[in-house]
């Protein structure tokens, strides 16, 4: 029966699995201690479980408080991914991009990509320095996804409009490294969005 309470608390939780399991283990240990306390004071186990459930509070309220911690942890994880990956990807593009004058259209698209990366990087830096707390996971997730979307869109257009002579010889490496970075950032950003959405659902 004590499992019922824990399962109800656990069901809506989303976020880093290790922290989630650790928090639930701690809550479970405390709950069992409360039940043992009740039994020691003469209650039947069923009565003790009912009393512990009432004392611990509505599973929804406890889950909401736990989800806030999971959201904060996921926000920091995604923020670290963004502050490491985005500058690395920007430098990669600058180092391995085509030489010579790329033309106005390519320059504008490249600057647009830089601006999207800078916005996501700024949000991540604010999270890591503790200046952005509310909706931190959603902010990091949304800006991470947007920056990757802009980068993919712009690079596709650049590939279509750039002259063949502009193509650098290191293009395969550039594309592979970009793809790895894009998948890494996108996966983390999407996780952050899911965790942020769970916070909105749980309360």
């Amino acid at each position, binding site marked *: 029966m004590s499992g019922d309470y824990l399962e109800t*608390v656990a069901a809506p939780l989303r976020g880093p699995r290790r922290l989630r399991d650790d*928090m639930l*283990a*701690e*809550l479970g*240990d*405390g*709950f069992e*201690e*409360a039940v043992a306390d009740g039994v020691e004071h003469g209650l039947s186990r069923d009565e003790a479980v009912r009393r512990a459930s009432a*004392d*611990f*509070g*509505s*599973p929804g*309220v*406890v889950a909401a*408080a*736990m989800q*806030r*911690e999971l959201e*904060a942890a996921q926000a920091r994880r995604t923020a670290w991914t963004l502050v490491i990956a985005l500058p690395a990807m920007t430098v990669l593009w600058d180092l391995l991009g085509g030489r010579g004058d790329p033309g106005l259209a390519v320059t504008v698209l490249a600057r647009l990509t830089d601006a999207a990366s800078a916005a996501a990087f700024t949000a991540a830096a604010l999270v890591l320095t503790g200046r952005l707390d509310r909706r931190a996971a959603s902010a990091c997730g949304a800006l991470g996804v947007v920056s990757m979307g802009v980068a993919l869109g712009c690079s596709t257009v650049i590939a279509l409009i750039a002259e063949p002579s502009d193509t650098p010889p290191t293009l395969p490496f550039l594309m592979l490294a970009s793809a790895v970075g894009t998948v890494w950032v996108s996966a983390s950003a999407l996780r952050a969005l899911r965790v942020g959405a769970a916070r909105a659902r749980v309360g």
Partner: protein
Amino acid sequence: MDADGIHGQLDTLILATLRRGEAHGYAIIGALRERSGEQLDLPSGTVYPALRRLERAGHVTGKWTQAGGRRRRVYELTAEGRAALEKGREDWLALRQVMTAVLDS
């Protein structure tokens, strides 16, 4: 007093229970009940995530221990936690003074 009545003060109260030494979540819940003369009626399950929040803020450190066949996560105040407790206490006394002055005027 229910949870809404102590809104914003729970962290300070938890830190106060750790002033005399380390404790685990269930002991902290017991200390809150006992020291409030059973007047504090809060969903005790929320104390656990509150402890994680305090740990994230650097006000306490937590570690798993094993004692008497029971696994427990034990928390201890940090120097920052002591400072936060002192500030929380001062803020509360200032608020109480303001409330008393207005209500009694």
